[in-house]
């Protein structure tokens, strides 16, 4: 859109939305939220950017290569954190039985691997939503090229 008010306000607001989304992801084991809700909030900031400016500026900001890398990276991150349990001699995706220190409940770095699993899921869900948005709305322009 060509509205000046929408462009200025969205340029101001997008970093705060991302900060709030990362807060919801990181504090998933202390307050309501978690990986899925935080990932959706982070994705909505990039969708707001793509809606208020035009779509080419949005896809230049977070290109197709980087978002597909983030999506696969989120899944591989989840699997690697799960393999820590096998490395220490216990089951797959083990938290307390693998010897990971649980910390004091109520602090940010407590809960063992829950923090890292939330981060992986949040990144994966965010990149999924962004990729969907840019594919469904601008899909006919760059069809025919397989990256």
């Amino acid at each position, binding site marked *: 859109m060509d509205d000046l008010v929408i462009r200025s306000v969205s340029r101001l607001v997008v970093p705060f939305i991302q900060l709030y989304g990362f807060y919801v992801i990181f504090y998933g084991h*202390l*307050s*309501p939220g*978690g990986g*899925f809700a935080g990932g959706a909030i982070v994705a909505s900031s990039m969708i707001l950017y793509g809606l208020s400016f035009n779509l080419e500026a949005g896809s230049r900001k977070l290109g197709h290569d980087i978002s597909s890398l983030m999506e696969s990276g989120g899944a591989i991150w989840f699997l690697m954190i799960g393999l820590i349990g096998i490395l220490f001699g216990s089951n797959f995706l083990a938290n307390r039985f693998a010897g990971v220190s649980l910390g004091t409940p109520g602090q940010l770095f407590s809960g063992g691997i829950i923090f890292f699993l939330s981060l992986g899921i949040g990144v994966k869900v965010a990149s999924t939503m962004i990729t*969907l948005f840019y594919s*469904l709305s601008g*899909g006919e322009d760059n069809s025919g090229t397989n990256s």
Partner: protein
Amino acid sequence: MELIPKLINNSYYFAAMILFVIGFHTMLTHSNLIKKIIGMNIMDTSIFLFFVSIGYVRGGRAPIIQEGAGFLYVNPLPSALILTGIVVAVSVTAFALSLIVKLYAHYGTVDADEIALIRAREER
């Protein structure tokens, strides 16, 4: 009848079933493909409401453990199961919408009856 006082007690389940029938009617009646997908979404939402409201306990608080004893917490299990369900519903909707985009590019219309007519004419 004693049906109505029982339904007033279980008003959340009743509303979920009403939403389910509304979504079912939307999916069956309209011939526009996008309206059918929206009907499927309404049916999904009604089932999520039904599941999550099963776990409520009167006088219970949100399942975030606080200091002190004797607190009654809401059942956390249905909410944890529905998180997975919501993500699956979003994925199915996304895939269905991408198929509709390809259908529109090929046939030129998003109407299910017109697509059936075009295919019947092509076979002849």
